[in-house]
């Protein structure tokens, strides 16, 4: 077996119980049938064996994954783990949820199947995450209540925040204070928005001035270094970048991998396979195939014409774009294909957030250098 880990972003449903403005997913009331789960599991395990990979990380997302209910997950986890164990393989499960339908009934499955931790999402300020009834304010109130309940149950929570215009207007100081002091979180990350799928119609609402975005992120980075880094607050992707620039093994987000096609796929409730959740929910022209209709996932990935573009992309970028002359090529590789595709209609260009990434990388490099100097001074 190789030391590689393969990841699957698994969408057991496209349904969702909230109505966020910028959601790029095509929502429909479809759920992964328990009857099909053994077949999906078999396909994944066959692929692991073909690839000589021992472990598969399953990132359960949606739609809203909790719509499936805790019992469904308990049974799914048992079925998948048991099947993997029989073949000397293993699954590791992770859950990303909006927390809105969290109840204590979830505690056992979260502490068991998901190792006691889950991921959720919230923005600051929240103006775009909305309940069907009650809007953003009601969403924030209910989500904050659920967060408190889950934390009280001993569940570790990581939060993803998508930046938008109001975030930049609020500034990094208030943003950081909200997550660390008001919510009491020690683990959160910031994402850049992109106009995928149905949300594209709101493109102008969510497009950010890149200079302002870079300024915000650099400001947030500085604040985190000053107050959070030594205090153990994990703020992605800054923490991974600091690991990189201080010589540690770094786990950087998928948008900066050498080639994301080597690392993961996404499968939706109908068995559709694509590169990631963004592709599987938004861009049928880039579907790789269907895992329930094609008997061999390995062969599907190997022969998919759509997937070939993902494999070719980094090669094209170092040949045709200016990525090769960038001092941060080793930690970026041209950025995210879906961010590029959703903005430019082709993935064979570098990520439109290039200048923002460079500003963040330069900030991380400077802070990393200071940290190393501090260590040397202490050692001397």
């Amino acid at each position, binding site marked *: 077996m190789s*030391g590689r880990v393969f990841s699957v972003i698994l969408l057991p449903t496209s349904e969702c119980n909230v109505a966020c403005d910028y959601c790029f997913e095509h929502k429909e009331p479809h759920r992964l049938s328990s009857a099909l789960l053994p077949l999906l599991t078999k396909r994944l395990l066959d692929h692991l064996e*073909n690839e000589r990979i021992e472990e598969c990380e399953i990132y359960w997302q949606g739609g809203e994954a909790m719509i499936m209910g805790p019992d469904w997950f308990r049974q799914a986890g048992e079925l998948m783990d048991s099947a993997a164990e029989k073949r000397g393989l293993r699954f590791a499960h992770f859950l990303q949820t909006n927390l809105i339908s969290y109840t204590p009934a979830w505690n056992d499955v979260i502490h068991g199947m998901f190792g006691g931790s889950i991921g959720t999402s919230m923005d600051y300020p929240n103006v775009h995450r909305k309940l069907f009834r009650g809007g953003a304010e009601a969403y924030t109130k209910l989500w904050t209540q659920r967060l408190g309940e889950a934390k009280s149950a001993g569940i570790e929570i990581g939060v993803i925040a998508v930046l938008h215009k109001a975030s930049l207007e609020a500034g990094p100081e208030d943003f950081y204070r909200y997550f660390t002091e008001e919510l009491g979180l020690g683990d959160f990350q910031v994402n850049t928005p992109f106009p995928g799928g149905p949300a594209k119609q709101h493109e102008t609402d969510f497009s950010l001035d890149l200079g302002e975005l870079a300024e915000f992120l650099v400001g947030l980075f500085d604040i985190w270094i000053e107050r959070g880094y030594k205090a153990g607050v994990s703020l992605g992707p800054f923490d991974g970048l600091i690991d990189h620039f201080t010589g540690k093994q770094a786990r950087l987000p998928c948008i900066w991998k*050498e080639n994301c096609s*080597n690392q993961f796929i996404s499968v939706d409730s109908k068995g559709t396979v694509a590169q990631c959740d963004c592709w599987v929910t938004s861009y049928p022209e880039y579907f790789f195939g269907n895992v329930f209709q094609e008997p061999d996932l390995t062969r599907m990935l190997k022969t998919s014409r759509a997937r070939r573009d993902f*494999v070719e992309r980094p090669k094209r970028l*170092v040949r045709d774009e200016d990525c090769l002359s960038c001092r941060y090529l080793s930690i970026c590789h041209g950025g995210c294909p879906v961010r590029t595709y959703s903005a430019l209609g082709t993935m064979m260009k570098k990520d439109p957030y290039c200048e923002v990434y460079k500003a963040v990388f330069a900030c991380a490099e400077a802070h990393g250098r200071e940290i190393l100097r501090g260590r040397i001074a202490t050692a001397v």
Partner: protein
Amino acid sequence: MSQENYPVIRILPSALAETPGDEPFAVVVRSRDELCRWLREPPSSLSWLQVEGILGDSDAWMEAAHSGSDVSLDLILADPSSEFPELYKLVDVSAVHDVRVTIQARPGLLKAVKLAAALRFPIRLLPGQPKADVLAELKQALDFYLHDPAVEAPVEFFHSWIARTQGADVGSLWMILEEDPAAYVHYDIDGQTKISPSGAVGSTEHLPAEFVEDHLKSLLEQGAECATCPWQQSCRGYFKWPDRAYSCQGIKDLFSVIQGAADEMARDLASCVLQSANPT
């Protein structure tokens, strides 16, 4: 490590390596079939596979990534200018095998060095007898190696040359580049030994074990510039093979830059040691 302590490695074309024996050897593979054959059933004495001419073959690398063995791979880039983007094909296989990228010093080498470094592959640059344009790229590659934070893995021969200036026993440039026939015996398809610095095949009447010393002695006897070269002990006439008339001026400039960097590093280290001893 002293030269006499190096184990002798035979580097054989795949067809000649079928009954290798117990002595360490490396195999040159030039097709997917050859690559997969040696990855499938690697003998214990197989030290590495030297892979030539199949970087563009996606299926070969896919199969290599799935192979059960962990034999090290040395990927030869003969035309770095056109081949360098294909280095991305090695990302998967590098999770299973140690991969080194060997780059022939030809136009485009800097692109290959930059991408190989970004992918964290150790690099061996085979300089041969570089012309002015390639020499200019070698100097840029040296600057990249010395100053770019993206470089995490060694870039040879720069890396060992600097180590040598700090007292490391890495042998001569021939040894650093794995081209000293006393330790690395290259065979052609007819089973004849060959001297193959930087891929340029040249035959010799000297015994492999004595080739480098005989070559240098002969150069000195003929009044070659090696006689007064400050780097003669490290280089041992490497750049005078196969064309003895090759002018080393550009190479000497390159060595001067390396020496300058090595001196700077030595001063920094000494200063650090001094501060440790006298913290106030």
